[in-house]
């Protein structure tokens, strides 16, 4: 995630953005009689033709159940499903396909770790350390776990610029800490956390680390082996793939020792009423018929991102966020939340005296799609004493011109409210 910083205006994007845009059919439409400007990839990204075709091809020709049939379609489905696992393994540089578990998304992946690893390993008075900038998906599963085990949840604060307070993290990391769960990139602030350093500190203290990579994976290179993280989670629909599919990466020896989370077909070797033996990794954690099409779509999506180049995407998005930040800083009535030096393509803001929902509705009228609300990160809103922010988030298909459209549309917001 440490891409070189490019000066915003006049910088040449390392991506052929027009070619990228041609790959995404949903971008080419009018919304409220204006060209769509899609600045909500942080909530869910659009899909390229390559992903849509992979889904279409599978559904039209290859669909059957996986790991079950001896017939041709079942074999094709199984091969495509497992090929996607290999693509994901290579994309995040996992050591083995056994370490790649398909889930419904980031949320399910975190719940799996909390309920399987957490319940097996946490005792009363143990501690789980999270941060103040987590998405609810990386808070609530740990609260549930703490209720079930008597463990305590501790929270590392961030400062007003949106930077995690590492000195506080070091203080709060003790021999009682069993799990550290931290987001790689904050969805509400854009902050890129120093997860490599956090992982080293946590390991020195004897804790395992789960990294929520939902906002990081789409926007730059991630190497789980280099990071030495224990668990890494992400969602398909934020990385230009389908909804309903996500990934849990876990180190093999940890997954091996963990009890199954959900029981059912596919996760067993043998079942009798006296004894059931569980399947090998990763199938032990994939009970029931999986989202086969979703996994295949995700495989096509990581192929697409790999071909564009995660490094190049990161540079492009840095150019966009730097330009958007420069423009926002020039607006007297605009407050930005999250000004970390290392930041991904997320601009969270409010306009003085105008509620974010009203901004969202008026921008939509101008064809500009942004997210408004608490971004499933209510503690971040509480930190700044606001109930909601407006958030523009960028993808490889966004352009400097679109940011200009955003700021022109913001003028319309002011016209509407400040007569």
């Amino acid at each position, binding site marked *: 995630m440490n891409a070189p910083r490019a000066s915003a205006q006049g910088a040449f994007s390392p991506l052929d953005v027009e070619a990228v845009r041609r790959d995404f059919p949903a971008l080419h439409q009018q919304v409220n009689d204006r060209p769509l400007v899609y600045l909500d990839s942080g909530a869910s990204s659009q899909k390229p033709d390559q992903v849509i075709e992979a889904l279409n091809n599978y559904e039209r020709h290859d669909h059957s159940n996986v790991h079950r049939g001896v017939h041709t379609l079942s074999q094709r489905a199984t091969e495509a499903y497992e090929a996607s696992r290999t693509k994901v393994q290579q994309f995040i540089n996992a050591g083995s396909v056994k370490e790649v578990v398909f889930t419904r998304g980031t949320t399910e992946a975190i719940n799996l770790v909390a309920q399987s690893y957490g319940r097996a390993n946490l005792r009363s008075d143990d501690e789980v350390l999270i941060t103040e900038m987590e998405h609810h998906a990386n808070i609530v599963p740990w609260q549930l776990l703490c209720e079930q085990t008597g463990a305590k949840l501790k929270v590392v604060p961030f400062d007003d610029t949106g930077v995690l307070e590492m000195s506080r993290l070091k203080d709060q990391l003790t021999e009682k800490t069993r799990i550290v769960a931290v987001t790689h990139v904050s969805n509400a602030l854009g902050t890129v956390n120093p997860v490599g350093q956090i992982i080293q500190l946590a390991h020195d203290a004897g804790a395992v680390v789960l990294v929520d990579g939902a906002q990081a994976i789409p926007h730059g290179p991630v190497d789980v082996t280099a990071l030495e993280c224990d668990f890494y989670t992400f969602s398909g629909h934020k990385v230009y793939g389908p909804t309903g599919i996500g990934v849990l990466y876990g180190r093999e020896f940890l997954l091996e020792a963990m009890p199954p989370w959900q029981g059912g077909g596919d996760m067993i070797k043998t079942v009798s009423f006296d004894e059931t033996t569980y399947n090998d990794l990763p199938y032990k954690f994939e009970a029931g018929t999986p989202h086969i099409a979703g996994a295949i779509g995700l495989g096509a999506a990581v192929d697409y991102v790999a071909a564009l180049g995660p490094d190049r995407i990161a540079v492009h998005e840095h150019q966009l966020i730097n330009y958007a930040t420069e423009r926002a800083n020039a607006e007297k009535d605009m407050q930005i939340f999250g000004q970390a030096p290392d930041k991904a393509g997320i601009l969270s803001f409010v306009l003085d005296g*105008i*509620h*974010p*929902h*009203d901004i969202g*509705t*008026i921008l939509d*009228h101008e064809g500009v799609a942004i997210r*408004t*609300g*608490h971004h499933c990160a*209510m503690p971040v*809103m509480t930190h700044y004493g606001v*109930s*909601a922010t407006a958030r523009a988030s960028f993808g490889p298909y966004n352009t400097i011109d679109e940011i200009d459209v955003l700021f022109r549309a913001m003028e*319309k917001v002011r*016209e*509407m*409210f400040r*007569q």
Partner: protein
Amino acid sequence: MTELRDLYQAVILDHNNNPRNYGKLTSANRHAEGVNPLCGDQVNVFFSLDDAWVKEVGFEGRGCAICMASASIMTETVKHLSIEQADQYVTAFCSLAGGEKSEVTEGLDLSTLKVLAGVKAYPARIKCATLAWHTAHSALSKGGARVTTET
């Protein structure tokens, strides 16, 4: 912009900027809280009821212009009405905002409420407009159960 102005009419912006009956009512004997968990909007409605009548009403909260203006207009509408009439206005308003025909509109003056009718063209915003009214209904009828737009 003309269509948007149907939603953000001058009257609505005025109520948003200068909400009527704003603040906690110290004499209140009924209260309810309403929240929209999806967006964080929150409204507290207070009533001072005397037998079957609304003596005083107040609200406080935070939300978008539509939510705040609608709450302000609600308080002006139901003040000094009978509880039964006040509830009829709640029903009539929720139908109006949802673009439905209301069953009981006889004898009700809906002219003020119609400034909020533009919201029906914005399905995502209807809940903003109806939150304070649902909350008022709760305070009047059930004695203050917490209202949420998501069930």
